[in-house]
């Protein structure tokens, strides 16, 4: 070809508006902020993992049918106003942990701690607990006695009484040994005003100690992984620690115990409920070496691993020092740390600044933790 080459085409001016990538990312963000939708037509294990599928199930099935002002905040428990003006915190939880015994505790400890902690997160002093048992035919009475002894011990340690209960037995094979459901009631002091609604940009996010201990202890106790590490469940009652914290930081905004789904999940729940942006600092996350190692091998992020004796608190900046000092002086808060802060934009999203100097999104858990394979 001998013709002159065509003139180079002028590159179009870069558009002033958002790029296509930004539009797609905005869409994802909007999607992320939305409550997840229930798409399955049968329950699967992800619905019990505490992540997105669990939230979708609660929303589409339970909230849809039961909707009322007390339930709708979907907090750890309900706040019940009495005619006298006093307020009660009321919460329930079921326990199906396998194995029934694990380093640092048993289903009996968990059944008490899990429920009293949910009550404590409402700012209440837990007082009374109910216990209902579903037992499989053939379950040894000696094992049941051991579990119940653990419950009695845990109740004494938490300062609560187990005041009512129920027992059902199902056919062999219809349950896996022993399931326990507990409910707890506590009284909220008049001075306590906790709620996602009071969380403000500039507030700090604290955690009361090492994260991920419980989940890793239970996974390793199953003996299926061929990994052994000296990790014990952190199962413990948090009522006392909460009162210590509230005394030191009376303007504490919000409390949550990061059980299933871990710290990442409660942070996401907060970001959505309070419509704020949450920035975590990876270098500040208190994680025990053994837990970190096990997570690294299994390809799991400790942020998503369950805790049973930890709390996440949001406190105003000017009370942060006092809150940390008070928690660190308590045996259950010795490793308390500030792990992040609340920002304005973009709301509903949690990010983490990595040790390495990068940044990534911390989304809600999808499915059960899926370990990497290569």
């Amino acid at each position: 070809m001998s013709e002159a080459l065509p003139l180079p085409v002028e590159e179009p001016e870069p558009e002033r508006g958002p790029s296509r990538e930004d539009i797609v990312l905005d869409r994802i963000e909007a999607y992320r902020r939305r409550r997840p939708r229930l798409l399955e037509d049968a329950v699967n294990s992800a619905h019990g993992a505490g992540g997105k599928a669990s939230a979708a199930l609660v929303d589409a099935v339970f909230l849809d049918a039961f909707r009322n002002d007390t339930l709708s905040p979907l907090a750890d428990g309900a706040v019940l106003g009495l005619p006298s003006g006093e307020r009660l915190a009321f919460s329930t939880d079921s326990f199906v942990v396998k194995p029934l015994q694990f380093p640092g505790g048993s289903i009996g400890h968990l059944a008490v701690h899990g429920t009293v902690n949910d009550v404590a997160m409402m700012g209440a002093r837990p007082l009374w607990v109910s216990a209902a048992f579903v037992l499989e035919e053939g379950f040894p009475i000696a094992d049941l006695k051991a579990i119940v002894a653990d419950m009695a011990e845990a109740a004494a340690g938490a300062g609560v009484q187990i005041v009512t209960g129920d027992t059902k037995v199902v056919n062999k094979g219809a349950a896996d040994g022993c399931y326990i459901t507990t409910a707890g009631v506590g009284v909220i002091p008049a001075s306590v005003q906790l709620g996602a609604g009071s969380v403000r940009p500039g507030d700090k996010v604290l955690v009361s100690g090492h994260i991920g201990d419980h989940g890793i202890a239970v996974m390793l106790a199953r003996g299926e992984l061929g990994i052994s590490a000296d990790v014990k469940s952190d199962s413990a009652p948090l009522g006392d620690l909460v009162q210590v914290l509230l005394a030191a930081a009376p303007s504490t905004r919000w409390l949550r115990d990061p059980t299933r789904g871990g710290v990442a999940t409660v942070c996401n729940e907060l970001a959505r409920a309070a419509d704020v942006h949450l920035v975590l600092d990876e270098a500040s996350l208190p994680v025990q070496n053994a837990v970190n190692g096990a997570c690294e091998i299994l390809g799991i992020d400790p942020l998503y691993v369950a805790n049973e004796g930890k709390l996440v608190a949001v406190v105003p900046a000017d009370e942060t020092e006092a809150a940390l000092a008070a928690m660190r002086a308590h045996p259950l808060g010795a490793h308390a740390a500030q792990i992040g802060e609340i920002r304005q934009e973009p709301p509903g999203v949690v990010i983490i600044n990595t040790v390495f100097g990068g940044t990534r999104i911390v989304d809600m858990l999808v499915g059960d933790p899926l370990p990497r394979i290569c």
Partner: protein
Amino acid sequence: MKFVDEYRDPAAARVAVEQITALARGRHLKFMEVCGGHTHTIYKHGIENVLPESVELIHGPGCPVCVIPMGRVDDGIALAETPGVIFTSFGDMMRVPGSNGNLLEAKARGADVRMVYSPLDALRIARDNPDREVVFFAIGFETTAPSTAVTLLKARAANITNFSVFCNHVTIVPPLKAILESPDLRLDGFIGPGHVSTVIGNRPYRFVPAEYKLPLVTAGFEPLDILQSIVMLLQQIRDGRCEVENQYTRAVRDEGNLKALEIMAEVYEVRPHFEWRGLGFISQSALKLSDAFSPWDAELRFSVPGVRVADPKACQCGEVLKGVIKPWECKVFGTACTPETPIGTCMVSSEGACAAYYNYGRFTKGAAIPVRSA
């Protein structure tokens, strides 16, 4: 964590990033990381947001979950639903969609699907359940193929006859060639897979510089490994060199792992062709069990449908895998295809380019300000 933190040191990272910025000044270079493990590291640590804009990373086809075609997933589900079968799989496969649901849903329908961390776990299940047929869903590159091979040798030695393998192992070099043959590809070099190379060594990649004039640096899986491999690629380009180099010297030998290769040669033979999700059929790209191991071959032992299912039309996984488009450029990305409802496999595994971008991608632009613990 000892032996890990050293490779995540932010100060060393800054030095490497400065080197990269200086070496890449005035250019726009695209490097493909072949391995899904690298993609995971890149997003988990936020590497893209510490890199200068002159260096772009393309996430390649090395996620073993992402390349399994739908028809093979359907075959796996059919095996899982065969009466009497215990179907064992790595966790990552559980949510990969076939043409009619995934393994998690098959499990909810009653199939006995169990998540394992190693094929040896599957063999143990077979030993513990002599009256059941135990099938292992074998996937992965040369990284996982040796462990499946060892398991089969053990099954034969112990004469465990109720165990079989549904073999979907693939090899890395043929898809690499397929990608290099792709006419719309624009790449300046490869970050070579680390784990695969511990097995096959570095020699098999020599065709990349020899035939396609592109540098390749085999890299480890920590963030500093990735940065260092980028430095090495840029140095090659600066010096006008084009060769296979090894950054992952602490694990990779040029000749690979001879013992593993020997075992693989005994247990497997190369399939004439195998379908890759998004890439179509690639000849001699996958492994099947050799005749000596046919008694343990699930495809011979059970009738599997073996129906080829076309990739969903809307899904552009293939172009994403080849680096032709970015995840966000796919028509269904973030709308119909999300981590909760994946259409393409790139969205399922955390190592898939799309899931990684969806989960971690927003803050690759330095939007965040670091926070520090009190």
